[in-house]
């Protein structure tokens, strides 16, 4: 079978994630979009590993899942911290540092 369609789909997901990161203001949604980008990578890896018939891609994908989870958790932690500071939940409000 042909991997092209998997690739197209993963590229599409990647683009969607990127677009979300660029347009959304709610940090939680931004985190979701980052997950999309990473999982697009996963999909591509699985497809390729299928194509080449070796397992490296799958192992890679497993690792990536864990890494993604860790990133999300750290992100959530920081967001919680920010919320405790009563800063509005809005990535655009975080533009104190500039210039």
């Amino acid at each position: 079978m042909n991997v092209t369609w998997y690739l197209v789909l993963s590229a599409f997901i990647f683009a969607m994630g990127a677009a979300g990161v660029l347009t959304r203001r709610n940090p939680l949604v931004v985190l979701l979009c980052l997950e999309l980008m990473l999982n697009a990578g996963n999909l591509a890896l699985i497809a390729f590993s299928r194509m080449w018939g070796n397992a490296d891609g799958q192992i890679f994908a497993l690792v990536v899942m864990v890494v993604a989870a860790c990133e999300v958790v750290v992100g959530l932690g920081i967001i919680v911290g920010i919320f405790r500071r009563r800063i509005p939940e809005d990535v655009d409000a975080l533009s104190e540092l500039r210039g």
Partner: protein
Amino acid sequence: MSATAWGWLVLAFPLAGTVVISLGWRALPGRMAGWLGSGAILAAFVCAVGATVKLQKLAPHARHASSTLFDYAHSAGINIGMSIYVDPLSLFMALVVSGVSFLIHVYSVSYMTSDRGYSRYFAYLNYFVFSMLLLVLAGNIIILIVGWAGVGMASYILISFWYRRTTATAAGMKAFVMNVIGDVALVLAAFLLWRHAGHHVSFNGIFAGSKQAFGTNNGTLIAACLLLTVGAFAKSAQVPLHTWLPDAMEGPTPVSALIHAATMVTAGVYLIARFHPLYELAPTAADITAGFAAFTLFYAATCALAITDLKRIIAYSTISQIGYMMLGVSTGGYDGGLFHLMTHAFFKALLFMGAGSVIGAMAGIQDIDRMGGFRKSMRFTYVTFVVGALALASFPPMSGWFSKDEILGFDVHRGGYYLVLAIIGFAAALITAFYSFRMVFRVFHGAAVPEAQSLERGELAHGEHLNPMTGEHEDTDVGFPGAEHHIAEREWPMKFAMSILAVLAIIGGIVGIPGVTHWLRNFLDPVFADSKFINTQPTDTSSWIGLVVGAGIALAGITIAYVCYIRQPGTTGRIAARVPALQRLFVNRWYWDELYDALFVRPSATLGNFGRYVVERAFVQGTLVGGATRIVGVGTAIARGLENGYIRAYAVLMLLGFGGLGLYFLLQAAF
């Protein structure tokens, strides 16, 4: 002890002086730091003499030696030793530098007495002499660059020595940046030669390599030589990189004497003399250099005509005189150029010291319109200053007479293009004689100004401290600059230094009297033995003719000055009224600074505003992008405009960058 061992000692003493003074300054009482510094330089001078004696014992062709202390950078591709190269040329420079520096140290011992930064001053001064000696003794081009940059740094910290003067710090910055332009050019030249002349860094290696790598007027070689020229011009304040030197007069007067007249600014001359084989391989580059030098010497002389700030007059005359030296070394008259370098070091340092003494008597005022009639009250300064002025005007039998006219005589002898340059030189000589005596007559003759009268009554004038440039008040409690002033008449160290220099300025010419003594030429010949101009020296008779012509010109200039300022004072005023345009041109230094402003500063500023505007509209939507400096306004504005603090904008930037990369690679895939 071998010549190189002496050479290392020459470097060791000033370095030790710097360290000792800068670490132990709390412990040094009174003038101790000053005497310590002077002693270190004197020791360096003695060692230089020792090295010379050692070298002269050898056969002429063997009069060069290099020694390596340790490997500075030794690895694949590069091999540089921390090494010095001792030959008549470097020793000549070392002698002049350490000798004159010693006298200037002695002068400073009393001139800077009341300055709070006394020890700091001498630490800097020793550091400067060390870097300068490292420059002239460097065994390869990399060490030369190290010394070169060190000298630039020293001049920066010494110009801004009185850092409470905003004008002083600004001038320091200006000098440093201009010098760095030179450094960059020098580094690029070094790499060009390293790459194309067979991976050599030692001077002889480079020369040998380029001789077989390049034919005559090879493009790369010309480029390298021109880069060297840019470096030399930046350090020696030649047009168009000269604007920093007049501002550098913000530093203490002895500094002006040391760095900006006697030693540092001559580094460029040394550089070109050191690399003369390359310039002889690339005559085009040499001719371009000579052309610029000729223009500089004329231009600077005319500027010195109109300016009224005593120290700046001498500064411009320095630019002009270095133009003569550049002319000499770039057209092949090496011993002429170096001869003039030596004599100029004597009489220009002397002139600065005299100026310092007068400024002391004027309580810090530098404007010659305010001066006059110091003839009686400052007898000693007067005499020495006149000696210096005569030498500068190349009046027989002063040292300047022989040296300057040897350069011009040589160019006349080469004829053609060089004859034109020589004629420019003679014309400038007339102006030189005129403005040097303009100084004498305006400062020492005429009616005695109040300060002069009070000095005749025996007390030193005590005006309140004003910044000579901006006229703003300065509190002397902090001691930058010192509260009291000092004049040669009352301080024996100043007297000592000035009288020795005066003697040298008078008799300095004997080392090269045409037909009588060729000591300097014989001393330097081993270096320039391979030069193709070694035998194209003018005959004694023709050079004597040149000397007579020069003397006539000098006499004429002095007489004109005498007429203008003594016989009918105010003549100059009438002339200026007759041709106001010329007057304005000279006063404004031919509008160089304005030219720079129009050429570089304003366009970039407008660009900056434009860029800022666009950026704000397109990306930031009104986020302020402030504080962009004028020169790189546009770049800073854009760089900081993109830095608007929005995570989203950063992500956009990243994805755009990735898009660019991806596009590049896809294009590669497509073709």
